[in-house]
């Protein structure tokens, strides 16, 4: 949601810690909240890579006798309507959530960057044409655009990624264009041109890297938004079909048992929120550092 507001980052503010690298320097100054966020993201990455290491049970292992068990010593987060272990399903659901978030962001970023670069560097008529197209795409609310795409192409993971990713294209395109226009007139680009480097080399070696760093940071924050959007669509019933462990889908099913088994929706709700908060917190920290603001 925060990506709805356009920001142009004009490099670090002069003199205010601008030379501080983005990486791990100053790690010791981090607040405890950021440490927790970082740890949680590491945990998520492990869970998505090797869920079988962390999950105590098979996420699809149903047993009617074990249905609706409250959280207890054996099933830490309880069991669902088919007696499946909620914790295991949550852990196996990490992969699809993270993949969804990353893939949709990459899709939006790739197309947005391509359009933004062409727009910022190309002839004026092409710039105008692309930007008017971007205006048109921006006029559709994200979720409605996603539903249109699902109507035409059907549901399922790949189409969900497309549906969520496309909503990001116009924003990244505008951002990259603004950054490109900014960098394009910088002294070092002029110098590179004067030195006789080819146009393509200037674009790839000088303009892209310099225009791209702030965009990457905003994309990090954007991952949280795409995970949310993906979860919402899967909650609406357009995700992978039921037995698959997906957080949004788990909440959709758990909704029917709110009165008797509130843990069925509470845990996935907590997982989605913690994931998005952690990713956003890290992204915002990167943003703050790149702008050279004090911690």
């Amino acid at each position: 949601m925060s990506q709805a507001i356009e920001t142009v980052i004009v490099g670090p503010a002069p003199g205010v810690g601008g030379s501080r690298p983005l990486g791990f320097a100053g790690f010791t100054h981090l607040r405890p909240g950021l440490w927790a966020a970082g740890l949680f993201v590491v945990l998520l990455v492990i869970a998505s890579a090797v869920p079988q290491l962390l999950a105590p049970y098979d996420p699809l292992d149903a047993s009617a006798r074990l249905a609706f068990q409250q959280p207890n010593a054996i099933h830490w987060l309880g069991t669902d309507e088919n007696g499946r272990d909620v914790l295991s399903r949550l852990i196996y659901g990490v992969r699809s959530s993270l993949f969804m978030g990353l893939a949709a962001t990459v899709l939006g970023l790739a197309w947005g960057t391509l359009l933004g670069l062409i727009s910022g560097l190309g002839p004026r008529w092409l710039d105008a044409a692309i930007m008017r197209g971007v205006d048109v795409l921006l006029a559709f609310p994200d979720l409605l655009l996603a539903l249109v795409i699902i109507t035409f192409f059907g549901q399922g993971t790949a189409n969900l990624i497309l549906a969520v990713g496309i909503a990001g294209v116009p924003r990244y395109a505008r951002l990259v264009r603004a950054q490109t226009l900014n960098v394009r007139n910088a002294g070092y680009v002029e110098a590179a041109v004067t030195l006789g480097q080819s146009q393509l080399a200037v674009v790839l070696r000088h303009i892209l890297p310099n225009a791209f760093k702030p965009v990457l940071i905003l994309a990090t924050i954007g991952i949280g938004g795409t995970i949310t959007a993906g979860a919402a669509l899967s909650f609406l019933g357009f995700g992978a079909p039921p037995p698959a462990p997906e957080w949004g889908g788990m909440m959709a099913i758990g909704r029917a048992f709110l009165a008797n088994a509130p843990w069925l929706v509470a845990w996935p709700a907590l997982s989605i929120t913690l994931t998005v908060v952690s990713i956003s917190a890290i992204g915002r920290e990167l943003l703050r550092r790149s702008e050279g603001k004090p911690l």
Partner: protein
Amino acid sequence: MSTLKRISLRLLAGVGVLWGAATLTFLAVNFSGGDTALAILGGPDALPTPELLARVRAEYGLDQPLTVQYGHYLARLAHGDLGESYRLRIPVLQAISEQIGATLQLSFSAALLAILLALVCAILTANRSRWVRSAASGSELVISSAPSFVIGILLLLVFSFHWHWLPPSGSAGWRSLILPSVALALPVAAVLTQLLRQSLEDTLEQPFIAMARARGLSETAVRLRHALRHALVPLVTLAGFIFASLLGGAVVIELLFARQGIGRLMLDATTNKDVPMVLGVTLLAATVYVVVNLAVDLINRWIDPRSAQE
């Protein structure tokens, strides 16, 4: 450039966006590989005879060249005709006008709530001690990160199923409006609070605030009477964003709280592949977005004439 010329240019740009949106939907219908005549007859399961298909094609003008169809499509849209729903068999516009009341009710109460919450929170927390600020920005981060359906379900759990204070579903009476409005408003309010506080803090640095303080005004009076008015300007620009989040959120919230409305209409249409309905709602949303942004532009010009001189 005269004001009138600027305004007409903006209007023209808005019409251009709508034309682009209409063209995009037309291209989507014709190049997505689906057979429109088949869809009108109820999909492949209806097993229509070839004669029937041909008759439908002739009746809906689907046998004509694409350019002619495109012209007809634009002409119909210009007259406010969004086509007929494949499933409900009534004009899309009629279906929308039957449902829009409930959605407007929900989104207006949510917008009001979000703006009020943001105002109160921002005024209370701007330029306060470090602890107040980190507590506020922390909770804003959590609330703006939590999807509205997560907030909605948690509200349902607490207020409907645990304490039985409020009805869990339905669109009858103001009591059933409270939980959905809060669920819809909270994420928007969190984003607005962050921006408003930033803008308030910037304003509080301005010389005229020092002047007001020098005149001996209390902190509350400075914030309410002087800083707030100035800080509100950036908020107006966000009207488009507020509108889009509320409309998108309404789809999920209306399902969650079993309410009537445009969101439900859109959702059912998506599930049933009711293309005219999906496109009708989407085009309507795009139109409202364009109109809202045009209005925002004019209001900004009126509040701050400097913005007209770029």
